[in-house]
């Protein structure tokens, strides 16, 4: 199997990964960004509501276009449709695209693998027509297809509110919003959802969007042997990171939702800091990540910065 080499490899092309790749490449690191989807952008590809950035609220599509242009201008090699399925000592990535399977040896790796939607079991929850909230967003906003005519949305947090809003923006109807934690819920139907029964009341729907929250997707970090910790503020199991976002494994850094579910602004700031840390680990920044970079990161997401410090490996034992 072919082994390729690079200085910095970034896994995941959402806001955190793009920001990390830009930060590393601008400091002179030869940088490759791999993303399993057909185009980079992550959540910026399928969300439509404005997202908060340091420059103000912007449409996700515009932020995505700007970030990709910045990455290309900085010299980042973008590899969409590339699945990274393994992370081994080195760090050494195992990757595959439509035509090739290969290993990618990097001096530093930034994992920005994002998050996945939480599932919750209820009667009928495996029926066709029950989707994650994000799946509904992808179908309506990216592929412009309605998975049905009348929607139920499950959840009582910001994810559910956004999905319900997106359903209406696409011209479809939200028949009911319910919370699995509060209401008794069952989906009914034979070969697909025909109704959602909420506390005994039957609502005729053919789509149920489960938007109860997200969890970090840190599978590659776990595979690499990173110390993990659980923290409700970060959405579950997350890698415990040092003050450079290093993951306790030489050359490995983590940023964005994979290191704790949060908004786009936090992902951008953390990605940028992780990219700078990766470049610093190559000796491209002298002795250390400049204090200005850490200050920018802390200022952009102070609560996350503090929570992150409490999750550092030397604190993990006492936190649980």
């Amino acid at each position, binding site marked *: 199997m072919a082994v390729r080499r690079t200085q910095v490899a970034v896994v995941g092309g959402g806001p955190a990964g793009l920001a990390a790749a830009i930060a590393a490449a601008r400091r002179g690191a030869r940088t490759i960004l791999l993303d399993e989807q057909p185009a980079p952008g992550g959540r910026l590809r399928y969300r439509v509501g404005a997202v908060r950035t340091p420059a103000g609220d912007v449409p996700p599509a515009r932020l995505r276009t700007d970030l990709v242009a910045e990455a290309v201008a900085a010299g980042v090699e973008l590899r969409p449709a590339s699945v990274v399925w393994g992370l081994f000592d080195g760090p050494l990535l195992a990757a595959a695209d439509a035509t090739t399977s290969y290993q990618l040896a990097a001096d530093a790796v930034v994992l920005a693998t994002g998050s996945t*939607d939480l599932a919750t079991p209820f009667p009928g929850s495996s029926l*066709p027509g029950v989707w*994650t909230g994000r*799946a509904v967003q992808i*179908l309506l906003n990216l592929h412009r297809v*309605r998975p049905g*005519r009348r929607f139920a949305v499950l959840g009582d947090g910001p994810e559910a509110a956004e999905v319900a809003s997106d359903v209406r923006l696409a011209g479809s109807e939200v028949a009911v919003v319910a919370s699995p934690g509060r209401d008794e819920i069952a989906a009914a139907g034979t070969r697909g959802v025909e109704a959602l029964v909420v506390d005994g009341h039957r609502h005729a729907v053919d789509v149920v969007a489960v938007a109860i929250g997200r969890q970090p997707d840190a599978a590659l970090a776990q595979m690499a042997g990173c110390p993990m910790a659980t923290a409700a503020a970060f959405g579950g199991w997350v890698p415990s990171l040092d003050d450079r976002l290093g993951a306790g494994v030489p050359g490995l850094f983590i940023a964005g939702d994979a290191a704790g579910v949060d908004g786009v602004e936090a992902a951008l700031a953390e990605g940028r800091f992780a990219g700078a840390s990766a470049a610093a680990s190559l000796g491209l920044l002298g002795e250390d990540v400049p204090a200005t970079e850490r200050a920018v990161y802390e200022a952009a997401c102070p609560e996350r910065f503090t929570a992150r410090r409490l999750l550092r490996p030397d604190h993990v034992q006492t936190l649980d």
Partner: protein
Amino acid sequence: MSRPPDTAAVADDDRRVHDHTLLGPLPASPAVRLTFDGRPIAARAGEPIVAALLAAGVRVFRTMPRSGEARGGWCMVGRCGDCAVVVDGIPNIPACVTPVAEGMVVHSQHGLGDDAWDLGDGSVADGSPPAPDGPEWR
């Protein structure tokens, strides 16, 4: 035994989001033709198989290995396996992240799709759920 195509409760021709409040009109896209369980499906170039099937009213993509229960997608990011289908004779293809192609032959997958491998003549068996006394994962 072949099943009739499963259609969604949506029976109208409005499964495409032609006009979106923020995104505007649906951009033009070249047409791509594929078949699903022998039925012709009109798709838009570049979209994943799941999008084309939903737009055509298909709602069930596979059945499960042991229970035989219907599944119709869940995550849309290639993770969960609920949309595994047989594409041009190859089973376990995640339809949510696999783009359509002209002339693509797609079949619903039953169980693990083992039956799809054995034919070798370009056709695919319409398998039924496995026997209850079969091996654990067959």
